[in-house]
C-alpha cells in the first residue's frame, strides 16, 4: 500500500505538465461543424508532432506504449490542464484503433493506425440501432455478399460525429440464419461511400454531434471486414479488454476541479436566503462537501483499479463500477451547480463557454446513458463482479 511515484515518474509528470502548458490549444473549442473537426484534428496532430500521440498504444503501432502509471499521470495532468476531452478523436484512438490492433490484418493496420495517430482522420461508431440499444446483439442492419463486396442496408443511431467522420466501425449482420451473436461482422466503412445518408439529432443541450446514419445498398469491399466474416461480435468485445482503467481519469480530474470551482462559486454568490453567500447555507455546504468526498473516493477507486490491473494482463469487470459511480456523481455535481445558480440557471450557456453550468447540467443526463447505461453497468457488476445468476 503506497501512493509514492518514483523519481522517473515525478520527472515524467513535470515533462507532461510543461508540454501541455506550452502546447495546449488556447482557443475555445468550436461547438460544431468543420471548425470543430479541424480543432480536434489539429490538437491530435500537435500531440503527434510532440511525441505524445497514443500514450496507451503499443510502440509497434506508433504509440508511446507508456506504463499504466505513466498513463495515469498523463491523464491526470491532461484533466488538470482543463483541456477538452478528445471528443471527435475518441472513437479512433480509444475504440476503433485498439480493435484494429487486436484483430485487423497487417494491411488494415498499416493503412489506418498511422492516420488515426497523426490526426488525419475522424472515426465514428456504427453499433446501436433503433431496436438494438442495450441489446446490441439484436442489430438488424444487413450486409449481403456480392462478389468481393458487401452491400449494406439498414440504419444506425446515436452515432456521434457521423457528419464529420471519414471512417466508421460498423457492425452488420452478414448471416441472417446465424443466432444473435453469430453472423455479425465488424467492418471498416468509408463514410464518403454513395448510399450513406447522415441526419443530425439535436440533443437536450442543443448539441449537434449526435446522428442517425442510413445505408441504402452501400458497397463496402469485402476486404474491409476485420477479424473474419461473421466474427464481429467477438471483435467488438475484444476492444473492451484494451482499456485498463486509465482512460477515464481525465474525466474524473475534470469533475474534481468542477467541484472546486463550485466551492469558489458558492463563496462568491449569494445563497438561497438572498442575504448570505451560498456557502453559508448548510444544505449547499453539505452537498459541496459530499461532492468533495465522493470525487475523492472515485479517484481512490481508480487508483485501486489500476493497482489491480498492474498485477494482471486482462482488466476485470470492475471498470463498470468506476463508470457507474462516476455517472452518479457527475449528475449530482452538475445538478448542484444548477441549484447554486438559482434563477440565473434559466439563462442557457453552452457547456463549451466559460460559466456553462446550465449546458453542463443538461449534458450530464448523457453520462448515465452513453457508453452503456447505468442499468447495463449494474447488470455487468451483478453478473460478472458478484457472480449473480442471470
Amino acid at each position, binding site marked *: *500500500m*503506497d*501512493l*509514492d*511515484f518514483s523519481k522517473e515518474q515525478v520527472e515524467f509528470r513535470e515533462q507532461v505538465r510543461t508540454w501541455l502548458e506550452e502546447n495546449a490549444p488556447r482557443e475555445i473549442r468550436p461547438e460544431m461543424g468543420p471548425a470543430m473537426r479541424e480543432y480536434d484534428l489539429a490538437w491530435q496532430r500537435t500531440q503527434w508532432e510532440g511525441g505524445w500521440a497514443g500514450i496507451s498504444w503499443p510502440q509497434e503501432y506508433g504509440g508511446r506504449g507508456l506504463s499504466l*502509471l505513466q498513463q*495515469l499521470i498523463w491523464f491526470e495532468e491532461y484533466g488538470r490542464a482543463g483541456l477538452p476531452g478528445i471528443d471527435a478523436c475518441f472513437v479512433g484512438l480509444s475504440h476503433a484503433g485498439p480493435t484494429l490492433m487486436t484483430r485487423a490484418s497487417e494491411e488494415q493496420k498499416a493503412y489506418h493506425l498511422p492516420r488515426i495517430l497523426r490526426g488525419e482522420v475522424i472515426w465514428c461508431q456504427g453499433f446501436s440501432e433503433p431496436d438494438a440499444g442495450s441489446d446490441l446483439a439484436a442489430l438488424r442492419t444487413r450486409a449481403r455478399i456480392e462478389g468481393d463486396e458487401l452491400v449494406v442496408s439498414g440504419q444506425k443511431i446515436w452515432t456521434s460525429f457521423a457528419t464529420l467522420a471519414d471512417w466508421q466501425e460498423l457492425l452488420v449482420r452478414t448471416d441472417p440464419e446465424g443466432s444473435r451473436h453469430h453472423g455479425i461482422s465488424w467492418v471498416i466503412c468509408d463514410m464518403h461511400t454513395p448510399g450513406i445518408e447522415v441526419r443530425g439529432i439535436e440533443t437536450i443541450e442543443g448539441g449537434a454531434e449526435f446522428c442517425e446514419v442510413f445505408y441504402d445498398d452501400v458497397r463496402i469491399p469485402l476486404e474491409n471486414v476485420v477479424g473474419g466474416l461473421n466474427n464481429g461480435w467477438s471483435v467488438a468485445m475484444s476492444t473492451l479488454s484494451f482499456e485498463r482503467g486509465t482512460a477515464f481519469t481525465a474525466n474524473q480530474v475534470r469533475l*474534481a476541479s468542477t467541484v*472546486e470551482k463550485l*466551492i469558489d462559486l458558492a463563496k462568491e454568490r449569494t445563497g438561497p436566503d438572498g442575504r448570505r453567500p451560498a*456557502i453559508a447555507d*448548510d444544505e449547499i*455546504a*453539505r452537498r*459541496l*462537501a*459530499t461532492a*468533495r*468526498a*465522493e470525487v*475523492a*473516493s*472515485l*479517484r*481512490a*477507486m481508480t*487508483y*485501486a483499479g*489500476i*493497482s*489491480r490491473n*498492474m*498485477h494482471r494482463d486482462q482488466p476485470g469487470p*470492475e471498470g463498470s*463500477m468506476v463508470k*457507474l*459511480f462516476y455517472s452518479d456523481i457527475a449528475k449530482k455535481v452538475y445538478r448542484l451547480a444548477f441549484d447554486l445558480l438559482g434563477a440565473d440557471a434559466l439563462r442557457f450557456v453552452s457547456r463549451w463557454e466559460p460559466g456553462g453550468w446550465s449546458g453542463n447540467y443538461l449534458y450530464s443526463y448523457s453520462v448515465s446513458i452513453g457508453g452503456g447505461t447505468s*442499468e447495463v*453497468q*449494474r*447488470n455487468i*457488476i*451483478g*453478473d460478472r*463482479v*458478484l*457472480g*449473480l*445468476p*442471470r
Partner: protein
Amino acid sequence: MDLLPTPAQMEIASLAADFFGNELPISVIRERRDAPVVVDRRIWSESAELGLFGLGIAEELGGAGCELAEETLLFRELGRRVVPGPFLPTVLGARVAALAGQHETASAILSGKATVGLALRRGPEGFDAATTPSTLDGRFQLLDAADSRYVLLVDPAGAALVETAALTDVRSEPAIDPGIRLAEARADAVPILAWVGTQEEPIRLRALVLSAAISVGIAEATRDMSTEHAKVRVQFGRPIGVNQAIKHACADMAVRAEAALSQVLFAAICVQDGRADAEFQALAAKSIAGRFAVENASATIQVHGGMGYTFEHDSHLFLKRAHVLEHLLGEPADHLARLVAQPAAQ
C-alpha cells in the same frame, strides 16, 4: 503507487480474522446480550497476546512497529465480522499513553490488563488547541466503558486519557446495538493521565481512518451477505438474484463497498505519510465509509426480506453498528463542515 495491500499485509489481517472468527463470532453478541460486558477477560487477554492493540505502535514503545496501513486492514476485519469490544479506544488509548510517556499505563493496556472505553462529548468541544489541558470537564456518553479502567476522548485539539473511576454520575443506558455498552457520565476537573495534541500527532485523523475502516468492513460484509442470499433464495422457481430489482441493489452495494474501501486505504496512506491533504482525505473517508456502511446494511435487511427483520439474523447487527460508527469522533454534519472548509486535495 500501489493502493492494494501486499500479501504480507493481508496475512496480518487474515490471522486476526481467523482469531475473531474462532473467539468472537457474531453469535457472541446475541449470547451475551444481557451480560455487563460483551467480551470476556480471557478473550481480551488473548487479543493482547496476539499483539492486536499495539500493531501500529513503534517497537521501542512496546508495539509491533507496523504502520497505519496494517491497522486499517485489521479494523476492516473488525467490521466484516461486526466484532464486539472496545478495540478502537483501546488501540488509540495505548497509543496516547505510549506517546505521552505514560509507559505503565501503555503496558497495562497493551497487555490486556486494562481496557479503554470511548467518551463522546455532549455539547461543544472543550479543549483549546493552543494549550495542554490538565483536566477534563463536561458531560459524556460512554461506549464500552462498563469495566474499563480508562476512557479516551478524541477532540479536534487532541486526545485525552482519564480514569473511568474518576467520572461521576455514571448511569448505564440501553443501547440500540446489543454489541456495545452505553452509559452517561460527567467529569468535574478529572485529571488527564495522558494527552496527545494534534500538533504532535494526527491522532484524530488516525481515529477517523480506523473508524472508517470498520465501516468499510460492514459495507463489504453486507454486500457479501446480500449477494449470497440472492444466489440461494429461490422464489417463483428462480434465485431472486436474477431479478434486476435485487441484482441492481447488490451492484450498488458493490460500488459503495469498493468506493469506501478505496478511499479508506487512500486516506490511511495519506495520514501515515503526513501528506498535506491528510485531513481532507481522512474526513472524506469517514464521511463516505460511514454513510455507505449504513446504506449497505439497510439494503441487506431489505434483500433478506422477513428474515432480515428478525433478531436472529445478523443483518440488524451490521446496521446498528454502522449507525454507532456514524456518531463516533464527531457527527457526520460536523465532518462535512470541516471537509468543505479544507484546501483542495493534493
